[in-house]
């Protein structure tokens, strides 16, 4: 139990670091709020290694902390919407048993960016955000696939370590 709590705390710290790295990376951003969402790797890992409930806790803690560090309820709403919606869909897809970690994670990346665009639409009230779906959602799928690969490698090694 203590070991699990410690690991979850480490996962929060790790996702916070990934989130920080991403926000300082000079990525060529071709759309408002474009983010790869690499901190999602922690969510996917936690979902598969522990449970949806634990993944939700880690996600919520990370989102709250990052909003405290960098400014404001708007950023919180924005990143929480992406993370929570994506986790919700990933949990459903995983439970269905029809998809592998790759499909689940790709859909997660897609939903992450879709939810953020929808929040941006409501905050700023502009239809223009819908045009970015064509760019950001495929980017989300690609990121999701890479995240799926990384998460499955980590899971494989963690399980080897466990036995």
């Amino acid at each position, binding site marked *: 139990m203590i070991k699990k709590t410690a690991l979850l705390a480490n996962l929060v710290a790790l996702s916070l670091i990934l989130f920080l790295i991403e926000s300082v990376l000079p990525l060529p*951003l071709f759309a408002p709020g474009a983010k790869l969402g690499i901190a999602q790797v922690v969510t996917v890992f936690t979902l598969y290694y522990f449970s949806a409930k634990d993944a939700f806790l880690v996600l919520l803690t990370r989102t709250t902390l990052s909003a405290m560090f960098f400014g*404001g309820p708007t950023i919180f709403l924005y990143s929480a919407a992406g993370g929570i919606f994506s986790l919700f869909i990933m949990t459903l897809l995983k439970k269905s048993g029809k998809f592998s970690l790759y499909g689940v994670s790709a*859909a997660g990346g*897609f939903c992450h960016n879709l939810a953020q665009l929808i929040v941006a639409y409501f905050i*700023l009230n*502009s239809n223009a955000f819908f*045009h970015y779906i064509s760019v950001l959602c495929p980017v989300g799928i690609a990121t999701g696939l890479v995240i799926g690969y990384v998460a499955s490698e980590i899971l494989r090694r963690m399980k080897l370590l466990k036995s």
Partner: protein
Amino acid sequence: MKINDILLIIVLLLFSFIPLAFINRSAAKIAVVSVNNEHYKTVSLDKDAVLTVKTKYGENIVKIENNTVAVESADCADKICVRSGKIENAGEVIACLPHRLLIEVKEDD
């Protein structure tokens, strides 16, 4: 990867490209700047200019150059608006969520 994963990805990709059908491009363009859903200023993209948008949320320096518009600098926390770069086509936007700022390129009509 399973066949289901590939089908899922194809469906998601198809969904992503639906909005492309609704985009159109044409000649004269304007940039509409709004803050917190309220109209702030409309400027033409034909003429180079620098616009300082100073509100209670913060400051963004908006630059219009060669029919493009960009946020040159801002004092927001995330700098996403600055990194969004230049936009020029109708329908494109630059947003600064911390400052509730939105710049939209539209057709002049």
